[in-house]
């Protein structure tokens, strides 16, 4: 039982590679349009060897980690506050929704100017896109707390802090993790968008470098695969944390 999901994932990855290779071989398109998998692997090894890949990957990774971390932390706090006060929700939610509705791609250049164009700006852009789904998940989760348990905690003289820590957050955890799963994949998008808005390193930048004039499509594929791996790893970590933290319920 515990081994079968890995076997399934491996089998589907192998099938994907075979399909990719077949399409590349049969269609006969040149490498600068669709490189075959082994071409990408060779290009990837070269990029790893020269240190280029790690330079860009580490920059993006840092943005993803900081952006996701700060965005998720802020979202948890705001989500709990929104859940507990209808007034605050009425006042704040239009702004939160509006910030989410404006495409991050359009907002990124402005944020880049505001936050000085450095790492801080990129983390803010990344955090902003992460913020929304986790805020909403937290709010919905906390609102769904069993009123019977709220009354129990009240009858036991629980402080507000105890109520949040021992009842509302644990109750909302499965829903919050739903938001975190969405958020962690959005963090990768946020990082790339932020890099395009103004950065000199990062996987988004590596894609630009491979594109502009070089037509180094295999290198572009290397960057894309690396982004996908970051997203998968983040998602996997969130799921693992979820399995650890969410105990069986009713």
């Amino acid at each position, binding site marked *: 039982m515990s081994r079968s999901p890995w076997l399934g994932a491996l089998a589907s990855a192998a099938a994907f590679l075979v399909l990719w290779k077949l399409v590349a071989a049969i269609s006969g398109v040149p490498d600068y349009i669709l490189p075959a998998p082994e071409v990408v692997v060779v290009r990837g090894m070269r990029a790893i060897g020269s240190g280029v890949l790690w330079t860009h990957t580490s920059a993006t990774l840092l943005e993803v980690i900081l952006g996701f971390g700060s965005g998720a932390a802020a979202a948890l706090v705001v989500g709990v506050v929104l859940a507990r006060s209808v007034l605050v929700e009425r006042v704040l939610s239009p702004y939160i929704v509006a910030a989410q509705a404006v495409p991050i791609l359009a907002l990124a250049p402005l944020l880049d100017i505001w936050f000085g164009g450095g790492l801080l700006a990129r983390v803010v852009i990344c955090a902003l896109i992460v913020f929304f789904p986790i805020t909403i998940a937290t709010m919905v989760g906390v609102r769904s707390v*069993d009123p*019977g*348990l709220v*009354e*129990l*905690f*009240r*009858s*036991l*003289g*629980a*402080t507000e802090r*105890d109520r949040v820590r*021992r*009842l509302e957050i*644990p109750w909302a955890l499965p829903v919050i993790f739903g938001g975190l799963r969405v958020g962690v994949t959005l963090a990768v998008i946020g990082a790339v968008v932020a890099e395009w808005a103004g950065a000199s390193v990062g996987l988004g930048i590596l894609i630009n470098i491979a594109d502009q004039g070089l037509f180094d499509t295999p290198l572009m594929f290397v960057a894309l695969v690396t982004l996908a791996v970051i997203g998968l790893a983040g998602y996997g970590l969130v799921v693992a944390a979820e399995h650890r933290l*969410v*105990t*069986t*319920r*009713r």
Partner: protein
Amino acid sequence: MHETSGERRSALSIALDDVALRYPSGVLALDGLCLEVAPGSLTAIIGPNGCGKSTLLRLVAGLLKPTAGSVRVGATAPRAGDGDVGLAFQQPRLVPWLRVADNVTLPLELAGMPRTEARERGEVALARVGLTAAAERLPSELSGGMAQRAALARALVTEPGALLLDEPFSALDLLTRESFDTELERLWLQRRPTVLLVTHSVTEALALADEVVVLSGRPGSVVERIPVDLERPRSTSVLAGPQAAQLGAAIRAALEASRAPELAPWAATR
């Protein structure tokens, strides 16, 4: 922090003086309700649906403040969480992700008691309700009866001077319920806290109470108090005897009278 001394509290008197309670919705749940309960007694509160029985318990537990009149538990107004009062609800209300032992010690931990001491007292409370073997289980792994026992242990763990039971066994099947009544009487006889028991069942009231208080329909007030002078422990033979039958008839008659408007809904003015 709250007071949680190791010794058990002595039984507390409960007094409601001309109490009215109006909910923010405008519903007047109780009006002109007077009730005094001696320390260490077991009082059953019975009345038609919606007469404010649960509201009365919430007032005594300090979860609600009376709109008019005063409520006292011992010498002071009740304060939720001071440990004077133990409360068990109709549903067990166990925290789903906490093991039974942690559910039972929750009141102590919220009151700031050190973990090891809380654990010891939790074990005692679990033993009293016969649930020691299930201490490490999650609530989802308990039967309805076991869950209700756990809830009772949680209400007992602070050694409260007053125990408030809001139809605690009404979700159980009849046989389990009768054995629970016997068990509850045994638990009560051990330490004699003051008990207010809200119930729908005349049989249950007879099996347990020193006195049965009959409430009127909404807004609730006390219409009759019927002392139950049956010997304890109340065996099946005592409960099947002529004296019990007579008392049962008296309670039913009082209930019937208090229920009258509900039997003639067409006469309702609304």
